[in-house]
Each structure stands twice: as C-alpha cells, then as structure tokens.
C-alpha cells in the first residue's frame, strides 16, 4: 500500500469556448522515503496534479473525477478535511522564493504563526522548534537570523526558509513545484541536496515537479512523464530515462542537450515524418554572403559598465560594477558563448555590443571600426544593420499590435526605403519560410503563435537586415526542451548556411556546449576564463568553471 495514491484524477477547466482537460485519468502513487519526479512541458498538467492534491485548483477549474488517498484516507471526500491536511500533513514548496514569503513579517513570525496554527505549542516551544528547523535546512546562526525579514536573505537562503516553513508541522508528504527553476545552478544543487537529505532523514514522500530532465536524473527515484494532461509513462527513473517505452518520452530525452559531448544536431522525433530538405533556407539567394576571413569580427577591449543608483551625483559608493574590465574577440563565422549565473553581467555586455547601453569605459570594435566612439545616428545605422539581436522572452520581444508582416518588414523598409511592395512581400515570405513558418503567418498577429513560433518570428526579424553578427541573449531559456532543440537546430542551420557570427549568451552549460566554438565564463562582471569549448569542458582552468561544471545537473549521471 503506497502512501499517496492518486486514482483516475481528472481536472477540467471550463472555458468560454471549450472545456480543457488539464488532467485526464491520472494514476500516480508515491511511497514514503521516495522522490517522485513529475516531468512534462508547459501545459502538460504537471502543476495541476500537484495543486489538485491540496485542492488549490483555481476557478474555473474543478476536479471532475477521481480520488486522492493519503495514508488510507480519501482527503477529498470532505471539503473541510483538506484544510486539516494542507500544511499539516502536506507541505508545499513553490517556485519563486521572492513571492512565497510575506515581506512585512520576519521569518520567525511566519514560522511561529504556521507552527501555532497546526500544532498546539506555546510561544517558547514554537520558537525553539522554528530555530531547530532553520538549523536543519542549513541556515547558519539561526538564532540571530530568526528576526530577519525575507529581503535580508539571498534567493537560495530564502528557498531554504520556504522549505523550513513547509516542514514545520512535520508533514509526511512534500510537494515541490519547480523549487529550483528560479535559482542559479550552484544554489540549485544545494537545494536539491537538501531535499534529498530531508527525504531520507524524515522518511518523507516527495513529489518534485520540474521540466528539467537533469534535475530528474540526479534527484528522483521514480519519474512520471505527462503530456497534455495524460500520464504518458511512469517508472523507476533509471529505467525510464535509459529505455523509454513511449515515443514521447524518447523524444523528450533526446532533445535534452547532452553535457558530455557535442552533437551536430538534435534529434527531433516527430510522429509525422517531415521531410528535411536542405533547400529550406530560401533567403540564401538574396544573401550577400561574406567570405569567412580569418579576422576578428568583434573585438572587445577592457569593457566596463557601472550603473549608478544616484540620479544627480555620480557617487562611487552607490554604483554597481556590472561589467568589470572584460576583453575578448570573436572571429568571423564563429559561435562565441558567454556563460555566467544571474548578475554576472553577460546580458549587459550583449546590450553594449548592440549599442543599447554606452560602456562606462573600454571600446568595442566591429570589423576594425570602434563603434563605441560613433556619435551620429546616421553613421550608427550602418552598424545597426550588421548587428542584430534575439531576446530571451518571446512574449515581450514582439509588438502585439502589429501583424507579423509589419514586424518583419520594418527593418527591411528602414534600411532599404526604395523596396517595391512586391519585392517586400517576396522577401517576407522567404524569411518566414527560412525560419520554418508558413506564408500565411504574415497576416496574423503575434498572440496567435506559441512561444517557439514567436521566437522564430524574432529570428526572421533579426535576419531581415542581413546581419553579420547575431547576438542571442538566452534565446531558448523560456522555451520547453523539445522546442529548444528545434530552435537551436534552426540557429545552427542558419549559421552554417549564412556564415553568421553568433554571440550566444546562456546560463545553461549543456546548451552552450552544443552551440559554441569558444566560451567565456563570467562571474560578477569579471572574466574567469576563455577557451575552446572542448577544452573548457574537459580541462577547465578556473576554479569557478570547475565548480559550475561539477554542479550542473547531468542527465548522463543516470548511466553510472
């Protein structure tokens, strides 16, 4: 008899036009002392299942069928029941530690409040218990930090506090919904280790909801794969990842970028076999192809950027050094990776190269011209044309009020005002086909497209000026892993065919390994090391790089 048994769970969202089945007849069981991974892409219903257990489904959704049996008791049979279980028997950890703590209460107050709600303890006992919990989740000097407010903790520490809050009533079931997605790699591994440790020590049943296959491979004992509300496959993690039975699981595993080797393309397993023709990059005919020379296209020399807090006076006290004396160069036709955790200054460098920010000091040379010294807009326009950028968030990077046609045509018209309308239409449809979108897309608005398709529109817009340098700022980190594989394949193809130079920015080491020829590692605005991709992954020189490599979740760890 397993500890938690989800039987035939169905959750419906009754919408205006149709009813969406967020979960369809899902059967999952979790044992004590075990971590069950619940994995799937966005919209697969993994969070819905997590929320259904504690009855946190928002209107207009409702549990339409099935039962949830915890320790032999059907907890959904009585609506009052769930209030008793939530918090007491079931603990919760949410994704964002910034929002899951109340900012106006000290963490001590929040812990004591939760403890006293569920357990009959007096103030002193509750305080002792709270301090012990904080120690257990690894917060140093718990007695003094007890009276601190959430904003005085870092992201990782805050997530520890959230975990202690989830644990404070001795729950037996812990539901963690993407607990490390908002955290950096180094913090992520600490939190996952903590969850693993607590599972063993307290004999908890844990459901870990995540989209990250690396996390699944390293943390979970068993894994359940979901797609569009259906449970595709459930089984022991090692068996499921190495010998997946279902096509969907196989395609999911194959689209995860491997950490230990470089592959030329991601395998896309699709039900319909779309014929892969090499001639799909139609704009090749229009492209004024630059022969690859052995010269540096981009040269960055001791670049620094300071952000000032103060509005009126330039004070050194309040300023933040986002980028500190960074130099590197990119050869034409190369893919150059910039890697670092959040706050490392990698996006700031990108924005200086595309001239959205002016550097505080240092120079950027493009094709041996110093573009940081250009004053006039007219002069700058020549370089704007050659440097384009793809952004992280596919939702905010397209103007929702314009048709796709107008979005893509804007750069063409701007740089070539005399273009005839027929030429323009041809050009647009060539561009859209090159990024594997249909011609009909031109007449539609961005909100009619999915995240991956929007990113393709972004790429089409960036290619419209026929740039030589493409700056990609985390182009796939907002996308699902199978979509990520498609977009990365597309970028690789485009680069090969069009001789593009790519500056690829990411926090995701396996992705960078697949995409880049050379990699620079950044930490707190400073450059740690630059080397060729294979050298960096096989024999890293800098301590920080070694640590990053050690901590990154590896799907291959399952084979050991």
């Amino acid at each position, binding site marked *: 008899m397993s500890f938690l048994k989800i039987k035939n769970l169905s959750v419906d969202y009754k919408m*205006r036009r149709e009813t969406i089945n967020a979960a369809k007849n899902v059967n999952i069981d979790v044992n004590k002392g075990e971590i069950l991974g619940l994995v799937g892409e966005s919209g697969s219903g993994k969070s819905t299942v997590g929320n259904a257990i504690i009855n946190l489904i928002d209107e207009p959704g409702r549990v339409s069928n099935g039962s949830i049996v915890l320790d032999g008791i059907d907890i959904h049979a009585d609506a009052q029941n769930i209030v008793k279980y939530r918090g007491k028997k079931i603990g919760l950890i949410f994704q964002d530690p910034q929002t899951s703590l109340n900012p106006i209460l000290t963490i001590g107050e929040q812990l004591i409040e939760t403890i006293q709600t569920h357990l009959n303890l007096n103030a002193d006992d509750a305080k002792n218990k709270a301090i012990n919990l904080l120690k257990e989740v690894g917060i140093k000097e718990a007695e003094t930090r007890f009276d601190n407010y959430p904003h005085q903790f870092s992201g990782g520490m805050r997530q520890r506090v959230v975990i202690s809050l989830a644990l404070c009533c001795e729950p037996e079931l812990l539901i963690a919904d993407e607990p490390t997605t908002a955290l950096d790699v180094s913090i992520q591994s600490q939190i996952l280790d903590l969850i693993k440790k607590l599972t063993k020590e307290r004999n908890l049943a844990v459901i870990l909801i995540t989209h990250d296959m690396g996390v699944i491979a390293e943390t979970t004992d068993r894994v359940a794969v979901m797609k569009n509300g259906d449970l595709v496959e459930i089984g022991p993690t090692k068996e499921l990842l190495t010998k997946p039975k279902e096509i969907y699981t196989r395609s999911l595993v194959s689209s995860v970028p491997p950490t230990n080797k470089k592959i030329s393309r991601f395998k896309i397993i699709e039900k319909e076999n779309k014929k892969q023709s090499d001639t799909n990059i139609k704009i090749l005919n229009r492209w004024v192809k630059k022969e690859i020379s052995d010269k540096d296209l981009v040269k960055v020399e001791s670049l620094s950027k300071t952000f000032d807090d103060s509005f009126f006076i330039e004070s050194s006290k309040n300023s933040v050094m986002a980028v500190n004396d960074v130099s590197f160069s990119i050869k034409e036709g190369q893919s150059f990776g910039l890697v670092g955790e959040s706050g490392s200054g990698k996006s700031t460098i990108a924005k200086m190269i595309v*001239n*959205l920010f002016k550097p505080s000091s240092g120079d950027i040379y493009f094709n041996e011209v110093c573009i940081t010294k250009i004053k006039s807009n007219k002069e700058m326009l020549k370089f*704007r044309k050659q440097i*384009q*950028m793809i952004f992280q968030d596919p939702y*905010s990077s397209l103007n929702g009020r*314009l048709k796709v046609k107008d979005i893509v045509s*804007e750069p063409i018209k*701007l740089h070539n005002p005399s273009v005839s309308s027929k030429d323009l239409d041809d050009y647009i449809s060539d561009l859209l086909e090159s990024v594997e979108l249909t011609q009909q897309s031109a007449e539609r608005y961005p909100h009619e497209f999915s995240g991956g398709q929007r990113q393709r529109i972004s790429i089409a817009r960036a290619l419209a000026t026929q740039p030589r340098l493409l700056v990609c700022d985390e182009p796939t980190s907002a996308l699902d892993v199978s979509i990520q594989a498609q977009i990365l394949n597309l970028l690789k193809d485009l680069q090969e065919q069009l001789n593009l130079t790519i500056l690829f920015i990411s926090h995701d080491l396996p992705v960078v390994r697949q995409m880049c020829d050379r990699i620079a590692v950044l930490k707190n605005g400073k450059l740690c090391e630059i080397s060729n991709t294979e050298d960096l992954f096989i024999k890293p020189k800098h301590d920080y790089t070694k640590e990053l490599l050690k901590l990154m979740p590896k799907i291959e760890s399952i084979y050991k």
Partner: protein
Amino acid sequence: MDSQRLTLLSRIKDSDIYFSFIKSPTAIVSSVILIIIFFCSFFVEFVAPFNPFDPSSLSLMEAFTPPSWSEKGMDKYILGTDGQGRDMLSTILYGSRISLIVGFSAILFSLLLGVTLGLTAGYFGGKYEMIVMRLTDVQLTVPSILMALLVDGIARGIISRELHDEMAIYVLIFAIGISEWPQFARVSRAATLVEKNKDYVSASTIIGVSNILIMFKHILPNIMRPVLVIGTIGLALAIIAESTLSFLGVGVPPTTPSLGTLIRIGNDFLFSGEWWITFFPAIFLVLLAFSINLLGDWMRDTLNPKLN
C-alpha cells in the same frame, strides 16, 4: 474588401471584449442609453418636435406650461415649456448637443496634450521628464473649476465683448481641457515606462528605428487601453464641469443654452413651483453622466484589470 470587412466583424465577435460586453447587462443598458442620447443630440433638427431658437415657433402665451401628464399640461409639450414658451424636450436635446460637443472636444484636447507629454516624458526620462511631471503636480493642485474660472477671466480680458459670446465655447473647451490633461499624462507616462523596457522596443532600437517612430508606432498603440479608460471616465467629468461652469454663468451664453445653462435658468423658477424647468435637464444630465461612468467602469474592468 467585402471579405475583409467580414473577417473584421467576425474578429470583433470572436474577441473577449465582445464576450464580456454581452455578458454585462450594465454595459449593454448604459451603451443603449448613450446611443439614444448621442443619436438624438446629433440629429436634433430631425428628432426634436420644435426648434426652440426659431422665434416664430415661440408663443409667450404658452410659457410655463407644465408637463403633459399634469392637469394644465398640453399634449404637444411633453415635458412642458420654460419661461419663454420654449418646449423643454427640444431645448434639452439642443442643450445636450452643446454639452456633448464641449465634453468631447475638451477631452480630446486634454488627451492629445496629456498623452504627448506623458509619452515623451516616459520615453526620454531625465530632466525633461522631471519638468513635465512636476508641471502635472502643480496643475493637479489647482481645482479644475478654479482653473476654468481663471481661463475664462483671462479670456474675457483679452477678447472683446462682442466676440466673447462667439468664442465662449472655445474658451470653455480650452478651460476644461487644460485642467484634465494631468490624468492622461500620468497614466501614459506610467504605461510608457513599462512598455519601453520591453524587448520589442529594444529590438526596434537595434534595427535603427528613430525615437519618434518607436514612440508613436510601437509604444502608443500599446498604451491606448488605459488611456481610453481614463478618457471615458474623463468625458463624464468634462460634461459635468461644463454644466457646472454654465450653471455658474461663465460657460456658454444663454442664447445657445447647454444643459448647465438650462438648469441655472430653471433654478430661478424652482421656488415659484415651476419645477420641471430645472428638473428635466438635471435628470438628463445625471442619466448621461451616469451611463458614461458605468460604461467607463466596465471598460476599466475589461480592458485593464490592473488599473483597479
């Protein structure tokens, strides 16, 4: 062309706004009332039973006739007549046209001024933004009625007496418009600050699009929703402000009375028992402003849930 119009119609029918509209009785009722009022006001020559400004149709003998359902009422004057024998219903309809013209023009004036200043302030930032925003703060400290009185006073000083009656309506539009613009400036600046940090603006900058084009082609359409909501609610305020000023005697002249002027004229007769002369224009004004406000509230809930 025809198929395009068809798709536009079906797109409107398919949209969430239409859906929320047909689900909201308040929105339907208030917009039906508004459509009727707008229609009657703008085609008043064809709708109104009398032309109150045509002296030949006036009969002083029939002055102070009460509404038709009371004892001394006459069938042809449904809402009775005023002190000069003008039909109340016709006078109200003619009056509401002036009120609506002044309201719409004033709000359009302040919308153009406020959005332009707010948009540029939010986009360029720096000292320019600081100056514009402090200006709105100063403007907000002056009550709109005082501002309008001030403008009217200055206008009377500058413009000669003969011209003044002709110019009165423009002075009124300017006076109301100038006191409403800070609302638009604040809302559009706040919305611009959000929009300008979105990546599509960066993308346009990288492409090399000029600042003017980024502001008016890219950012402006994206900030119009909150601006329209403020505009609708502001329209009711502007109509009320016009009536208040006319009531105080600094608005449109009595020769072309607006709703406010009618209420003021009727006010003189209130104590002698001729209640209908002030009551019906007042009810009409309340109905108009109330309907606009309800529609504005619905728009705020639907178009911009964050504004609550």
